[in-house]
């Protein structure tokens, strides 16, 4: 179309590249600061998980509070494959992703028949049931969990003991790849139809599409991303147990990060993780052993604030009047807020009647 409409993405793209450059260089400053390095890794990890959750919860509008299940399944798959069969962790990551995807689709078969609150409850119940099973199942280590045998560090073994910086880069890569993939997905035919399903499933059916098929696709992508994140987590802490990877708090946090950031947007889950992970980590430091409960208190408070003032999440702030005015001045409004499927239709050329 016109030249000016092409200029906006250039601004946005250079901003992104700048951010990426900063993130790539960041380990130069925090490599010898374990606390900050760990926090950065956790931000990336939770951002990846939030992105994954968002495919189903945001794009397709099917809110799950059982996504910890897929995270846990991914983690367990890789660890069990490594411990029982000596499988390389990278292959374990593929397997964990695939198994989580498959389980997601299977869970979807009964659950997608349910709407609204009932779907939410069903996802919770399924995840809790699996959690309970894993706490008593001997073969998977029951409640004690399983430790990954320590191997010599290096990229092939996906283990780094002295310097944790490689984990940083792996997590960052995962975040970039997932975000880029979802950027594409949102613009695709599938992303478009998921949006329609989120708006009105019955209307989508009446036009000849099977909502179940598209919701299953969203679930497969969503659960697969969580599975991959689970494998990363297992390799990072070299340990799995039901409480740390299948616990309800994982499911709740993932959903919260995406919801607080802004569902259905690409930046939302990243924003959510970037704000909430530090909140959680610092509160843990300041309130020592009991910190875990304090961060949940803060989360609860934030949920109330967001629910009352910004039901569309922090990304919704972009839609407030003063911010809109500012974006208009910068010429960024269409880049950040316009739906991806509408290129600029100049007023007038669509007039025909």
């Amino acid at each position, binding site marked *: 179309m016109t030249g000016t409409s092409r200029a906006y993405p250039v601004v946005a793209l250079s901003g992104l590249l700048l951010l990426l450059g900063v993130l790539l260089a960041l380990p130069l400053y925090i490599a010898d600061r374990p606390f900050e390095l760990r926090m950065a890794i956790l931000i990336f990890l939770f951002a990846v998980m939030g992105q994954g959750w968002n495919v189903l919860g945001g794009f397709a509008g099917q809110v799950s509070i059982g996504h910890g299940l897929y995270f846990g399944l991914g983690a367990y798959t890789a660890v069990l494959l490594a411990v029982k069969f000596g499988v390389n962790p990278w292959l374990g990551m593929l397997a964990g992703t695939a198994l989580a995807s498959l389980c997601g689709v299977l869970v979807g078969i009964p659950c997608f028949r349910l709407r609204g609150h009932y779907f939410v409850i069903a996802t919770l119940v399924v995840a809790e049931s699996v959690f309970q099973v894993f706490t008593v199942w001997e073969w998977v280590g029951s409640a004690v969990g399983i430790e990954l045998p320590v191997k010599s560090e290096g990229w092939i073994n996906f283990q780094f003991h002295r310097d944790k910086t490689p984990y940083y880069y792996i997590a960052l890569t995962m975040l970039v790849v997932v975000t880029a993939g979802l950027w594409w997905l949102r*613009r695709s035919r599938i992303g478009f139809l998921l949006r329609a399903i989120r708006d009105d499933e019955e209307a989508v*059916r009446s036009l000849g599409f099977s909502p179940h098929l598209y919701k299953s696709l969203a679930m497969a992508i969503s659960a697969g991303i969580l599975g991959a994140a689970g494998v990363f987590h297992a390799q990072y802490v070299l340990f799995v147990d039901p409480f740390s990877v299948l616990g309800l708090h994982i499911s709740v946090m993932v959903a919260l990060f995406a919801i607080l950031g802004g569902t259905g947007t690409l930046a939302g889950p990243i924003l959510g993780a970037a704000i909430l992970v530090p909140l959680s980590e610092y509160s843990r430091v300041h309130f020592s052993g009991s910190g875990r409960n304090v961060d949940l208190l803060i989360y609860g408070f934030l949920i109330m604030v967001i629910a009352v003032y910004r039901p569309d999440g922090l990304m919704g702030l972009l839609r407030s009047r003063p911010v809109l005015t500012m974006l208009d001045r910068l010429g960024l409004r269409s880049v950040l807020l316009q739906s991806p499927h509408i290129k600029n239709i100049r007023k007038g050329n669509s007039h025909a009647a």
Partner: protein
Amino acid sequence: MSPLLAVRGVSKSFGGLHAVRAVSFDLSAGEILGIIGPNGAGKSTLFGIIAGQVRPDRGDVVFDGRSIVGLPCEAVARLGLVKTFQTSRPFGTMTFLENVMVGALSRNVGLAEARAIALQQLDTVGLAAQAERPAAWASTGQRKRLEIARALATKPRLLLLDEPFGGVDLPSVDALVELLQRLRDSGITLLVIEHNLEAVHRLVDRVIAMHLGEAIAEGTAETVTNDPRVIQAYLGSTEVAHA
């Protein structure tokens, strides 16, 4: 010539209520058939049965020579039988254009082509100027036309319209009658539930009147609306003139 749609003795009960009782009719390609009747006559249930949203207890629905009873509604839509909703249901977070694009995508085209089809259909229903506006802002009359455009974008052969004139203001009635006639001229067969009898008179080739789940009269709009049974169904047993 065999009819495009043949409804054969379909019945549906909800608990003890007979919503539709042994209704049969044929619809030829290129015809406009109206279904009238007071509220609760079973018209919308009948539509639901034809479109695959409601499974009949008995009877058969044959579309283009093929029985479609038991097919899910999305499969029926894929065959070219598309129904609009009585209360229009636009995709609220989408623009007018995007709404219609969803319909176009069912033709297995890419987004760019879907967009072109959608613009064309918005133009057909006179909403081209609204293309970029959020559908949530649409007036009732615009919603009705938007839904028609969305259904048209799927390239249907038979369109089931549930009260297309409901909530449409008087001046727009003419435009809508004219639009539906143009659709018929372009080869689309129409089955229309409508309360607006004036619009029915001007639009349809044939009318079926329903009352308490049964088809009680069939014929031209003139004969059916003058049928004493139909008048009684609408007015009850009293002789009071309508408002």
